[in-house]
């Protein structure tokens, strides 16, 4: 057994691709050697900007020889079958064995030497590597992420010979581009990492990440500052350097007038610098860059160069910022009618109009307690920064820039906050109103023109918008009928285009939307550990589109069914429901006759309202309650319990005390268990049977006041 080293040397691999490339290298290597039956021990993968490498420990010398017997056609089969079998196995007829009238082929494979398999593996890896983007170079046909220059392939101490498009494997590679120009020779897996380190290349990306993380922190600390940790930058800089050297530089503090986010973002995205704060957490006029060289002068020239580049960028940012400050947001907002929101949905100005209306409605309806005029103003200014120079340069700062500009023009804090936070899921009332209205409008507008998410495609991120809407509603405890809100949003858009057909479709679309939200709610709540069957059980009641109440029910239900009492009650419920189903029992005969009379049933009517005759009314009530003629004590006890529980549970539901409702239901557990233990439902006497079935139905319906228990799993 020996260790195997593979290095693929290329021109600079994009930093963002390296993590996946390492994974792919390890996976492909394991797959190829695995298919060939070559045993290996642990596999380590490495990357630097210029190389992808792999070390496999304890590679077997060869694959084991194998013997495989393949069953062929019967000897009596037509000759074509035999010919086919010989073709498939590559054998001649006299090499086959014959047993019990059947041909067998014995295929023996000699063990293959590891080097041969490894050479194949390398060719396959290079040919099929799943780079996100690959290229050709020179006059070759090979594809790689950037030009591939060398292959180091050493098993133990021997080179694994392989040639790919003119690149011949060997033992030579290169060290750091500037510290160690020229070739270096690797002995094998055992000295690879250390030989490269001696040539200013740290092969292990995790070690480089650590050096950057700790070095940047140290550089800031030495200057009396605190580094703004940024793991994404650590990884990216590790992907850009073979010999990382973090260096601290400073910039002119006059640039601190520019919004902090702009400075941090410029440094991060354009320059890949870390930002620093002072002791109070305020942004400090300093940066940490990561050089790829231990410079002769300790990095003074590098820091000075980087400072100047940053100064030019910040000067540009400040120019845009100062220009933006000169234009009031309401002036900017006017330009939104020149920006198309979506070709089927008008301009951003149209959208702003709808959002303002919906946000106002949310406040006027009492869903959100906030100043109506402030909410409307925030909604009207919320998108104005889209035409600012700053957002033009840094689109990811939409909202943030608007917030700063609103503050600068002395808008009330609630307005500025709402402008800044409306893309997220804020908790401030005015912000929540604008944020929710914005998201509901987007979702409804796209559904209204039939641009809905399908399968894995959701080009307008409507699923994310729905999840965010749910979060806003739940986090802020907003009580609203989602159906009403959705219909309002749809109607707003229909009014803008005076589209009669859109109004026609309103019912259908709003139903689709509620289903869409229900699905998203399940996804969102699953992450919070809420069972989807319980959400289904509550949705199945119908008419529940107040998400706060719905989740209160679901949560109470979940706590309940996870207790022993709840589980028992669920069992009893299922037993009752099964009996009713088996007996095809739909209720007291008096009731079903009403259906026969053609009176439409909605399920909500008082079963007694149509019964006028007072004497009959009592009798019917008795039948309906199942109490008429009850003879066994367990029957009577259940009736008594139901009488109390029905009232209690429905009062609790009314008061939205779902835990109370569950507690009331829990008290049915003993009487229903006793009932099942001692009462025969299917009594030979028809009246008794009918009475007891009615009683079970009453029990089922009592439980169903809180949720449709038949939807609950387990």
């Amino acid at each position, binding site marked *: 057994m020996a260790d195997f080293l593979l290095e693929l040397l290329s021109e600079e691999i994009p930093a963002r691709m390296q993590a996946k490339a390492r994974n792919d290298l390890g996976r492909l290597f394991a797959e190829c050697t695995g298919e060939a039956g070559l045993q290996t021990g642990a596999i380590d993968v490495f990357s630097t900007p210029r190389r992808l490498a792999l070390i496999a420990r304890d590679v077997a010398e060869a694959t084991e020889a194998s013997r495989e017997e393949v069953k062929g056609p019967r000897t009596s089969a037509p000759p074509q079958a035999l010919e086919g079998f010989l073709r498939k196995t590559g054998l001649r007829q006299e090499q086959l064995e014959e047993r019990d009238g059947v041909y067998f082929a014995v295929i023996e494979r000699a063990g293959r030497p590891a080097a041969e398999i490894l050479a194949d593996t390398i060719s396959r890896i290079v040919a099929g590597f799943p780079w996100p983007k690959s*290229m050709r170079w*020179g*006059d070759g046909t090979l594809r790689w992420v950037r030009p591939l220059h060398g292959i180091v392939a050493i098993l133990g101490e021997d080179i694994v010979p392989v040639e790919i498009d003119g690149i011949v494997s060997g033992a030579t590679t290169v060290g750091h581009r500037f*510290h160690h120009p020229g070739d270096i020779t690797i002995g094998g897996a055992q000295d690879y990492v250390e030989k490269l380190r001696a040539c200013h290349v740290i092969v292990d990306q995790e070690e480089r990440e650590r050096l950057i993380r700790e070095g940047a922190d140290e550089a800031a600390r030495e200057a009396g500052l605190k580094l703004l940790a940024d793991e994404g930058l650590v990884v990216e800089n590790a992907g850009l350097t073979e010999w990382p050297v973090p260096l601290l530089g400073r910039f002119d503090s006059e640039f601190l007038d520019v919004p902090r986010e702009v400075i941090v973002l410029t440094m991060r995205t354009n320059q890949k610098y870390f930002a620093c704060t002072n002791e109070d957490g305020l942004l400090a006029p300093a940066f940490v860059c990561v050089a*790829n060289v231990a*410079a002769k002068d300790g990095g003074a020239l590098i820091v000075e*160069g980087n400072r100047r*580049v940053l100064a030019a960028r910040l000067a*540009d940012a400040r120019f845009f910022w100062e220009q933006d400050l000169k234009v009031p947001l309401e002036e900017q907002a006017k330009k939104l009618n020149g920006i198309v929101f979506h070709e089927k949905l008008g301009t951003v100005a149209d959208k702003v109009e709808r959002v303002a209306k919906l946000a106002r409605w949310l406040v006027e309806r009492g869903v959100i307690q906030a100043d109506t005029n402030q909410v409307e103003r925030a909604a009207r200014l919320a998108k104005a920064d889209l035409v600012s120079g700053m957002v033009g340069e840094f689109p990811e700062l939409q909202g943030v820039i608007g917030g700063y500009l609103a503050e600068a023009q002395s808008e009330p804090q609630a307005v500025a906050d709402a402008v800044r936070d409306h893309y997220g899921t804020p908790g401030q009332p005015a912000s929540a109103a604008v944020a929710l209205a914005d998201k509901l409008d987007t979702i409804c507008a796209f559904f209204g023109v039939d641009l809905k998410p399908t399968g894995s495609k959701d080009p307008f991120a409507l699923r994310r918008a729905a999840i965010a809407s749910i979060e806003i509603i739940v986090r802020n405890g907003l009580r609203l009928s989602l159906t009403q809100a959705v219909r309002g949003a749809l109607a707003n858009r229909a009014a803008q285009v005076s589209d009669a057909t859109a109004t026609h479709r309103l019912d259908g679309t709003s139903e689709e939307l509620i289903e869409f939200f229900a699905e998203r709610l399940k996804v969102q709540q699953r992450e919070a550990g809420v069972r989807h069957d319980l959400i289904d059980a509550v949705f199945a009641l119908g008419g529940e589109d107040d998400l706060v109440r719905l989740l209160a029910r679901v949560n109470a239900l979940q706590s309940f069914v996870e207790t022993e009492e709840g589980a028992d009650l669920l069992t009893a419920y299922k037993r009752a429901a099964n009996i009713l189903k088996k007996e095809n029992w739909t209720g007291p005969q008096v009731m079903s006759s009403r259906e026969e009379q053609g009176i439409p049933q909605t399920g909500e009517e008082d079963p007694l309202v149509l019964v006028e005759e007072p004497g009959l009314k009592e009798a019917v009530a008795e039948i309906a309650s199942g109490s008429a003629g009850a003879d066994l004590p367990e029957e009577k006890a259940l009736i008594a319990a139901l009488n109390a529980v029905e009232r209690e549970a429905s009062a609790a539901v009314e008061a939205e005390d779902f835990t109370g409702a569950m507690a009331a239901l829990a008290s049915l557990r003993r009487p229903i268990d006793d009932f099942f233990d001692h009462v025969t439902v299917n009594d030979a006497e028809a009246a008794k049977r009918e009475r007891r079935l009615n009683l079970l139905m009453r029990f089922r319906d009592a439980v169903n006041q809180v949720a449709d228990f038949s939807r609950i799993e387990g």
Partner: protein
Amino acid sequence: MSLSFQDLILTLHRYWSAQGCVILQPYDMEMGAGTFHPATVLRALGPDAWRAAYVQPCRRPTDGRYGENPNRLGHYYQYQVVLKPSPDDLQELYLGSLAEIGIDPLKHDIRFVEDDWESPTLGAWGLGWEVWCDGMEVTQFTYFQQVGGFECKPVTGELTYGLERLAMYIQGVDNVFDLRFNDAGVTYGNVFLENERQGSEYNFEVANTNRLFQAFREAAAECELCIERKLPIPAYEQAIKASHVFNTLQARGVISVAERQAYIGRVRDLAKAACEAWLERAG
């Protein structure tokens, strides 16, 4: 003393001349980037080897700042090198040119940072990097994969140096107008400041948009005429002209977002047709 602006150019000329490049003079047409030069676009197509280096003035009307911004210009210079097929040691050759102009890679931080290049108006794309020197982008380094919608076989390696930036870096100057143009006391500002002022005023405020729209249509028509007559080079020149007129119209702010795509598409079609005619003519 560090290189003056003109010595920087002369040094690069000598260096790339020694690498077997044809040293060309700037193309006599307005264009937004050195890539547009036929010595890059057309020569990148077809099987023949080619090496060239040249300075190309670039006009980007929307980038003009009336001479008031120390880093932005509406007219500036690119130094362009194309090597076809791209040699295996292209990175080393490039780094050699940096050493030649006085950048010591053990004192400075030279990095190749992913930057894929695409020109929607040329139907062209390639993979490569922007080369950083101490955090500043000094060169665009690209391996062409497609031009005019056609595969590049063999692949051309393209280096585009931003000359002003590079000179500012070498001379340690913070304002482009303070660059030493030569070693006889002439600054970049002496040569170009007034051009920037007048150019910005013309591009942003004066240019007659009706005549520009007319010029766009005429260039497009001439391009099509040349294609019909199988004259790819004049056809391509007219595509360059249309592209520049479009850039000026953009600076005047008279092209809406929706129209913008349509204009880019129109220029691309012209450029593609010229490239196709070039390949046909090359056989």
